Structures are given as structure tokens and as C-alpha cells.
């Protein structure tokens, strides 16, 4: 597990920065809730219905509760989380080749399978840690700013489900990122690919929501499987989760298969 430790050490600073930034962002967003809930939402009602659907704002009344408000605001943090997970994945293998460290790593007695396996495990642990801390911060902040009368146990239930769904969403982006990383021999395009991957699937989800003919596209959007507003309203949609798990397994196996056969760029 030497590479596992090396990988964790390499990323611990990045992880810390992301946790701090997302923590501050969450605090900033949720702290606006007491002021926001008292504001009139009549102006927003003028927006076209499809537009409201696209922004997950179909039920404006929800915005006057902490769950509804958090569910709407936090979807953008979910996008950022998806980008973080995808970046961990796309950089994982390609960075070694891009920075030339592969010549050190691969001259050690470690197989390609072990390289992929230990890196997957390390990045899964890192992402899980990030997500658990982010969710813990979000939960505590929501408790601090919740409206009077809001049920703590109800909030806790919602957060438990969101934590699981968000974790699966991140792992989906992480594993697809890994698959891309197995093809790349440089991490120069890793960030743009990560952004592209998350936004493209998110837009597919938006199209799926706006047009019933394309409803199937919703399944191509891991972010939609973990939208806080949907989770808080109707719980986890297991068909999304199953699709994500299939993507994780297939992408993972393909990564092993491709990396075993790849000519490394040294």
C-alpha cells in the first residue's frame, strides 16, 4: 500500500483547500437563508415554468424552509463536488506520465493493476473524506440557521440520504475520470475534461427535465441523481443510483484493462 500512502500525501493539501473553500461557501450560502425566506418570491413566479424546472425551482414554497432553500442553493456545490471528483480521477494516472514520475514509480516492483487499484482506493478515500466533511459542515450550518419549528430528525434523514447519493455521484465522476486518465498521457487537458464531463452531463439532465421527449437523458446526469432538492422532497431515486453503480463498475474495469495494455509515456 505504498502508492496508496504516497497518493494520499500528494493530495492532502488539495483536499484541505477544497474542504475549506466548500465549507466557507456553504456557510455563506446558508447564512443568507433567514433574510431570503422573508423576501417575497412573487417576482420569481414570473419566470417560465420550464426555466423554473431547469433550475430545480418548481416548488417556490420550499424556499421558505431550510431544506428547500439548502436544496436549491447546494445544487451548485454539488456541481463543484462533481468537478472535484472528476479532477481527482482524470489527474490520477495521467499526472504520473505528464510529470515524468512514472519512470520512478514503474521501476519499482509494482504492477500496473496495483498502480490503478491503489490510486483508485486512495482517491476514493480522499473523495469520501471530502464529502463527509462537507456534509457534516452543511448539516451543522443548516442546524444553525434553520427556521423555527423545523424538525431536526427530518433534516438529519434528508442529509443521510443526500450524503449517500452525493457520494455515489462523486464516485461516478471519479471512475469516469479514471477511465479518461487511462487514455491520456498528459494531464494538461484534465481540468477542461473534468469541467466538460460534469457540465455536459448536467446540461443533458436540464434538457431531460425541460422536454419530456428527452426524459431519458436525466439518467445520463449523475448530478440529477443527487440533487438535494429532489432528495429532500422524494428521497433517493434508486434507478439513478443503480445506473451510477453500473457506470462505476464498467469504467473501473475498463480502466484496469486499458492501463494494462498501454505504452507508458516516459
Amino acid at each position, binding site marked *: 500500500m505504498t502508492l496508496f500512502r504516497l497518493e494520499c500525501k500528494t493530495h492532502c493539501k488539495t483536499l484541505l483547500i477544497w474542504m475549506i473553500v466548500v465549507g466557507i461557501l456553504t456557510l455563506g450560502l446558508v447564512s443568507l437563508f433567514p433574510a431570503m425566506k422573508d423576501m417575497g418570491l412573487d417576482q420569481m413566479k414570473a419566470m417560465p415554468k420550464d426555466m423554473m424546472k431547469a433550475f430545480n425551482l418548481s416548488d417556490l414554497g420550499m424556499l421558505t424552509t431550510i431544506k428547500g432553500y439548502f436544496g436549491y442553493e447546494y445544487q451548485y456545490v454539488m456541481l463543484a463536488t462533481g468537478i472535484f471528483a472528476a479532477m481527482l480521477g482524470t489527474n490520477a494516472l495521467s499526472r504520473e506520465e505528464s510529470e515524468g514520475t512514472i*519512470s*520512478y514509480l514503474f521501476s*519499482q516492483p509494482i504492477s500496473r493493476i496495483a498502480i490503478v487499484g491503489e490510486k483508485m482506493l486512495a482517491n476514493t478515500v480522499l473523495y469520501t473524506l471530502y464529502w463527509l466533511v462537507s456534509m457534516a459542515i452543511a448539516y451543522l450550518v443548516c442546524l444553525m440557521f434553520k427556521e423555527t419549528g423545523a424538525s431536526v430528525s427530518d433534516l438529519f434523514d434528508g442529509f443521510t440520504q443526500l450524503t449517500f447519493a452525493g457520494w455515489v455521484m462523486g464516485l461516478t465522476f471519479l471512475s469516469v475520470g479514471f477511465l479518461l486518465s487511462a487514455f491520456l498521457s498528459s494531464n494538461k487537458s484534465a481540468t477542461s475534461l473534468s469541467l466538460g464531463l460534469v457540465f455536459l452531463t448536467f446540461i443533458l439532465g436540464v434538457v431531460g427535465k425541460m422536454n419530456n421527449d428527452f426524459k431519458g437523458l436525466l439518467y445520463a446526469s449523475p448530478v440529477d441523481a443527487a440533487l438535494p432538492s429532489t432528495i429532500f422532497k422524494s428521497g433517493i431515486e434508486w434507478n439513478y443510483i443503480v445506473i451510477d453503480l453500473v457506470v462505476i463498475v464498467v469504467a473501473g474495469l475498463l480502466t484496469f484493462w486499458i492501463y494494462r495494455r498501454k*505504452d507508458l509515456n516516459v
Partner: protein
Amino acid sequence: MPVIELSHISKRFGKFVAVNDVSFTVEKGEFFGFIGPNGAGKSTTMNMMLNFIKSSGGKIKLLGKNVPEHDLDVKKQIGYVPSDVRFYPQLRVRDLFCYTLDFHHMKGDSAELKRYCDLFQIDPQKKFGDLSLGNKKKVALVCALIHHPELIIMDEPTNGLDPLIHARLFRVLKEKQEQGVTIFLSSHNLKEVEDYCSRIAFIRSGKLIGVEDLTQVNQNVKVITVKADQLPIAVMEKIGATCVKKTDHEARFAYEGNMAQLFSTLSNLSPQLDDVTVANRDLEEQFMAMYERQEGERL
């Protein structure tokens, strides 16, 4: 049993043939040189040996085991120094040593590590990314040595090293060789190859030109340089000398034959010669002659 056994290996990148049907063996305890001009296929050959890239054909055996099938077993017994040392810049040197030992499931000998650090003047507390090119190379050398490999593969190991460290490195390598370790050295520095290697393989344009025993090369082949207005090329060729270089008033010949006959011919020619020197052919001379001849054949 050979420690390195390459049989008809080749590597194609699309239509480009980088290595073409290369075969040679290296015996246990040998100090073997691998030389060739830039782009000859040296690094590609080593990359195949280390399974960084897959060969397009042929067989590679290291330490008696097939590569890539037994890649992991083989790498437990290999120390590798890359030409371009790019290790993890955020790690301290001591951490790099620890990780290297961890990969080999070894605890490591702190006294030995200290000896290497003192010998190569390495500060283990420094971050790898803050080191100069030469110091990075020294760290790579120590990483290749600390797990006591049976085979050390080095790609241009002395680039960026000062003469003192250079001498110390080869002293350590000689010690290792005496202990039975096989050393495979790829280098552009022909002087160091000539000084330390017992055999060499020449490669050019992906093809193996030859494997030479350096002791034979240096003892048998003489280089004769003559200066004259009328160069005695025909006479020299008559006794079996090969003209390897010629200008208006100077010619250089390679000669591998009877020395009495050579000196008798030179003596007869002496009235028409302005100057003549006879010397052992060094590796550089041999290398240049071989490549000039190949270039001539290509043109």
C-alpha cells in the same frame, strides 16, 4: 545464465520502426555499455526491458525471467536510473528513500543510507523539487542502489554530475560489480564507457550494429594518422588499412594486422610523409568510424 537476454526484439510506433530485430545477451557480473547516437533506439530498448512499453516482437528475459510476464519479480531485483530524473517534487529526499524501500518491502540500513548521502553529498532533508539537476541525479542513483539490486540499468547516469561525484559513482558501481551485480549502462560519454565497460552494444537507427569486447577492440585495432602532400592511400590499403577519414593533406587509417608489415611500409613511405602517428584505437574512434561508414553506406 545471462542476466539480460534480448532475442529479436522490435518496436514499431505506427509505421515508424524504432527498434528493429535487436538481440544480445549480458552475463552476470558484467559492466555492459549500450551506445548509439540520439534517436538510435537506446531508450526505447530500455523502456521495453522495464515494461514501460510493450515490444512489437521478440522476447525479453531479465534475470532468467520473461518480461513482461514476470515483470514484478524482475523489478524486485532491478535498480533503474532514468536519464530525465523527475521524481515527486513535493517529497523530501529522505521520504523518497523510504518510499523506495517500502516498495521493495525493505526496512533499509540507515548506516548504508548515511554512507550514500555522505558519499554523494546529498541533504536528505531537502525537498526533491528544490534540488539541482546534478543533485536529482544523485538521489536517483541512491534510489537505484539502496535495495541491493542484482541488475542496475542506467540511462545517462552521469549527466549533470561533477567530476568528484562522477568518480565516486563509478567506484561504487565497481564495488557492486565485484559483488556480482550486473551493470547496464547507456551513455553518450564514450570515455566512461571505455573506462568501465567490458563489452558494448552499438545501436543505430533501431538496428544493432554490433556487440564488441572492448579489450579486443582496444588491443587489436590501431589508428594511423599521416600528413603528406601526396597521401599514400593506395599503399596503405594494399597492406589492409582502411581509410576512415581524409582531408587534402591528412588521412586516418584503421589497421588490424601485422605490426612489422605496418612499420616497414611506413618506413618506406617516410620520405614523402610530413608526419605520422600510430595509436591504439579508442572507443570514440571506433564509434565514429562505424557511424561514418554506416552514413556512407546510407548515402
